[in-house]
């Protein structure tokens, strides 16, 4: 097995009693002393601190970066105001998704954008961008750590250290001077809660994490709870719910393709545009849906879904949802079975169990608009 990478917070995780697991080439905390269930509930009620330093932070600068990025993303980048962040994804020629990401317009004069990609995507996304946008300076930062502080008490706690963050709205990007060096902060996250992602120079990461953890409202939260939180929020995990074989329309992500890329002079022009624009107009043969299994047994990824004797799809993520106090799943079904309320069956350990197609998010998100 290749040697696993460690984030700057590795020793802190160990001292907090974390159980470490390999994840996307990193040794990461899956849970701490509280355990997955309590960590999940804590984040929904208070504030949870996540080490997401394994994710890739890419800085792009150069002439007219927005237009350059629109060659690889189906998102409206030119329409993104300075100091704002947006969700997006890189597509391939078949209309599939190479990786999903967050991008922020940092400095329009320098054409500077901040892009956060998945840990597993780091190795191939950087060379891909370097080739697709050759006239720009593109760097993967290895001198930065990334912390996420999520939950209804995220604002009050982070504002004690960085007062300016209280004025940010959902999906704002801001740079702040602090006792922990310069911080690039976005008001976003991946839990369905209000919160922040904080890019911090690695030599300050432990001190910042310790300052937050010293507050009564803040607990460290592992990848286990991160997964159940994002699942309840209906958010995709790359590699499970979306990949190079799923198109954005199949994945029910058309909300992330703005109008300016669908019609008018900036329509299309990204990889797979013909397929994706056609599916936007005419629909796709299958669709990602929320699924609520009856009873208590989770329907995990790989579970096959049936309507009568016909196999109509499969589960891509499934777990127990601690806030919903029931199992929740998401998966792909043939479009004629994608309507909310459709009754299907999932095959769990050889038995057919009832499951109902449901709207996502499974619970209302709690963003500060």
């Amino acid at each position, binding site marked *: 097995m290749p040697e696993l990478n460690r984030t700057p917070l590795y020793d802190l995780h160990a001292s907090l009693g974390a159980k470490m697991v390999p994840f996307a080439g990193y040794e990461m905390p899956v849970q701490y002393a509280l355990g*997955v269930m309590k960590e999940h509930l804590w984040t929904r009620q208070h504030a949870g601190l996540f080490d997401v330093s394994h994710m890739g932070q890419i800085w792009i600068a150069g002439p007219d970066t927005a237009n350059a990025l629109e060659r690889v993303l189906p998102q409206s980048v030119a329409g993104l105001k300075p100091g704002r962040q947006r969700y997006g994804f890189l597509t391939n020629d078949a209309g599939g998704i190479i990786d999903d990401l967050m991008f922020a317009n940092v400095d329009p004069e320098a054409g500077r954008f901040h892009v956060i990609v998945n840990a597993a995507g780091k190795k191939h996304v950087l060379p891909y961008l370097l080739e697709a946008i050759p006239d720009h300076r593109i760097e993967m930062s290895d001198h930065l750590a990334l912390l996420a502080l999520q939950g209804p008490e995220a604002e009050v706690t982070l504002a004690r250290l960085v007062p300016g963050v209280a004025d940010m709205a959902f999906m704002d990007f801001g740079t702040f001077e602090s006792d922990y060096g310069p911080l690039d902060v976005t008001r976003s996250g991946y839990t369905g809660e209000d919160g922040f992602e904080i890019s911090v120079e690695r030599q300050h990461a432990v001190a910042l994490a310790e300052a937050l953890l010293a507050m009564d409202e803040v607990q460290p939260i592992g990848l*286990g709870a991160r997964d159940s939180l994002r699942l309840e929020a209906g958010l995709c995990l790359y590699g499970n719910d979306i990949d190079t074989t799923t198109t954005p329309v199949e994945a029910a992500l058309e909300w992330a393709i703005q109008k300016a890329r669908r019609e008018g002079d900036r329509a299309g022009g990204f990889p797979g545009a013909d397929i994706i624009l056609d599916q936007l107009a005419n629909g796709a043969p299958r669709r990602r849906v929320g699924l609520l299994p009856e009873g208590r047994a989770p329907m995990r990824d790989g579970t096959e879904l049936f309507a009568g004797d016909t196999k109509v799809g499969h589960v891509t993520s499934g777990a*127990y949802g601690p806030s919903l106090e029931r199992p929740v799943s998401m998966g792909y079904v043939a479009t004629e079975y994608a309507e909310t309320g459709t009754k299907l069956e999932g095959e769990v*350990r050889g038995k057919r169990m009832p499951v109902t197609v449901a709207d996502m998010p499974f619970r209302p998100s709690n963003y500060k608009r």
Partner: protein
Amino acid sequence: MKYTEDHEWLRAEGDLVIVGITEHAAEQLGDVVFVELPEAETKVAKGDDIVVIESVKAASDIVAPLDGEIVEVNEDLVDNPGLVNEDPTGNAWFFKIKVEDLGQLDGYMSEDEYQDMIS
């Protein structure tokens, strides 16, 4: 009390053996969210998968540690799977199995041997 390599504990009570999972196993599983039990009066053979436990992490099976007949199952676990984490060696027993030959227990580990295995 006897222990299996699958982290079950076995406690003899007359001609019945009560079976649960150890504290160590419960800790390793993490929060238990679902338990599926066999029907009472099921004849089982040693090694049969008879209980499904799902935790926040994964699904696992409990095997019958002995040949015999399941005479009672702990329905409380179906409504409150978290009991497995709270009280694994007490209230969170899984089933009682009636065995013809209690000598089957002899092959299993003592408390000390089990502690050695997991340490």
